[in-house]
C-alpha cells in the first residue's frame, strides 16, 4: 500500500469526506479482515469482527492520529476489538478448534486456479499452525511478521516489555515453522 496515498486518505477521512471513507474501507478491508480472521479463526466471525472494527474506526474518525502514528493506532484498535470480540464469543459459545480444511478458501475453477489452490492451502496451513501457538506468541507473529509492525510498536500494542517481544518473536517463528512442518507431514500421511 502506498503510504502517501494512505496518509492523504486518512486526512480526508478525518475531515469527514464520505468518498475518502469509502476508498479507505475498500483499501483496508483485506488487511483488517485478515487480522480479524487471525483472531476469530472463522470467516463469518471474522467478517462481523472486521465490520465492528470499521464501525469503531468510523465513530472515532475525528480522533485519528496523523502520519506514521496512524497504522500502529489502527492495529491497536483492531487488536482491542478482536480481544473484546473473543471474550464475548467465549461467553456465548465454547471455542472450537479450527479445521484447517475449512480455513483454506474454496478456489475458483478459473485460469490460475491451481496456483490459487496451492496458495490457499499454504495459507490454511499457516492459520492452523498459528492456532497452536500460545496467545502472546501468536499475536507477536501476527503483528510483527504478518503485518510488519516494529518491535516497539508490537510491545506497545500488547502492553509487554520490549525484551519480551524480542525474545519471544524468534522462538515463536521457530515454533510456528515446526507446527507447519508437522501439519504438512500429517496431511502427506493422510
Amino acid at each position, binding site marked *: 500500500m502506498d503510504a502517501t496515498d494512505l496518509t492523504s486518505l486518512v486526512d480526508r477521512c478525518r475531515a469527514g469526506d464520505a468518498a475518502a471513507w469509502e476508498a479507505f474501507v475498500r483499501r483496508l478491508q483485506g*488487511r483488517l*479482515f485478515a487480522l480479524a*480472521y487471525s483472531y476469530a479463526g472463522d470467516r463469518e466471525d471474522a467478517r462481523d469482527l472486521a465490520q465492528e472494527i470499521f464501525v469503531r474506526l468510523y*465513530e472515532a474518525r475525528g480522533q485519528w492520529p496523523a502520519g506514521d502514528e496512524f497504522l500502529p493506532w489502527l492495529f491497536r484498535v483492531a487488536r482491542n476489538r478482536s480481544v473484546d470480540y473473543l471474550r464475548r464469543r467465549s461467553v456465548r459459545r465454547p471455542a472450537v478448534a479450527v479445521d484447517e480444511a475449512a480455513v483454506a478458501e474454496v478456489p475458483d475453477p478459473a485460469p490460475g486456479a491451481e496456483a490459487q489452490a496451492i496458495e490457499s492451502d499454504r495459507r490454511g496451513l*499457516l492459520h492452523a499452525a498459528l492456532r497452536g501457538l500460545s496467545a502472546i506468541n501468536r499475536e507477536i507473529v501476527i503483528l510483527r511478521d504478518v503485518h510488519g509492525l516494529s518491535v516497539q510498536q508490537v510491545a506497545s500494542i500488547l502492553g509487554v516489555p520490549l525484551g519480551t517481544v524480542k525474545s519471544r518473536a524468534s522462538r515463536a517463528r521457530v515454533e510456528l515453522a515446526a507446527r*507447519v*512442518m*508437522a501439519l504438512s507431514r500429517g496431511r502427506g500421511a493422510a
Partner: protein
Amino acid sequence: MSAITCDQARALMLDPEGSTADLAHRPDLTAHVAGCAGCQDWMHEFQRGALAWADVPAVDFTDEVLARTSGLETVMRDIPLLAEMDPGPGFAERVLLATSKNPAARGWRARVAAAWWTMVRRPRFAWEAAYVATVCWVLVFGNPVGAIEWSAANIGTVARERMAPPVREIRADLEAWRATLAPEPQAVGAGAAGPRADAPAVARIWQAAVEWMRQASSSVVEVIVRAWDAVAALLGAEPGDAGASTEPRDGPARSRQ
C-alpha cells in the same frame, strides 16, 4: 552482524550427523558463544559427547533443526500471505451501510433522531404514551371519573333536551310523506279505483303494480312512524319536557387529585 539467541546458537552448533558446526565460518555464532557462559558449557558438553542425543530423541532433534532452517525459511516466505485476505463479495458495501450510509452514524442529531424512531417503533410505545398522557391529564384536570359519573347521572336530561326538536321535525316530515303516499280521493263517477276494463293489458298491469307499490310504501312508512313515536315517547320528547335543564344537578363534583 546480527546477534543470535542461545536457542539459535545451539541449533547452529548441531547438524543432523551430530558433528559440531564450523565455528570459524559463523562469526555471529562465535561471538555469541564467546559472550555466553551457558552456551560455552553446552558446547563443551556436546563436544565431549555428554549430550550425544541422550536428552533429545532423534526425530525431535531433526524436526528442531529443520524448523530452524528450511521450515523457518518457508514460513517466512509464506507468512505475507496472511497479511491480506479477501473478505468476500459485498463486504465493503456492508461496512458502508453500517457506517457512512447509516443515518445513525452520521452525527449526534441523526443519532438522536434514530434513537427516537427506534423507541417510537417499539410495540409498547403506544401503551406507554397513553399511560403518560393519562397521568398528565389527571394531574392537570383532575380525576376524569367524576365527569363520567356526572354524565351517567344526567344522560336522560341531556337526551330529552337535545333530541326533542329533531324528533318533532322528523315526525312532521314523516307525516307529510305519508300524506303524499296516501291514495288520492277518486273523482265522483270515476268508478272503481282499478284500471278500466277496456284499457290495454300492459296498462292494467302497470297500474296494478303502481298501486301495490303505493300500498307497500304506505305500510312501511306507517311502521316507521310508529317506531319513531315509540322512541320519542321513551325519550319523553313531549313538548312539556323539552325545557328540562342540562346543568349539573347537585351531584358529586369532579374531584381533583
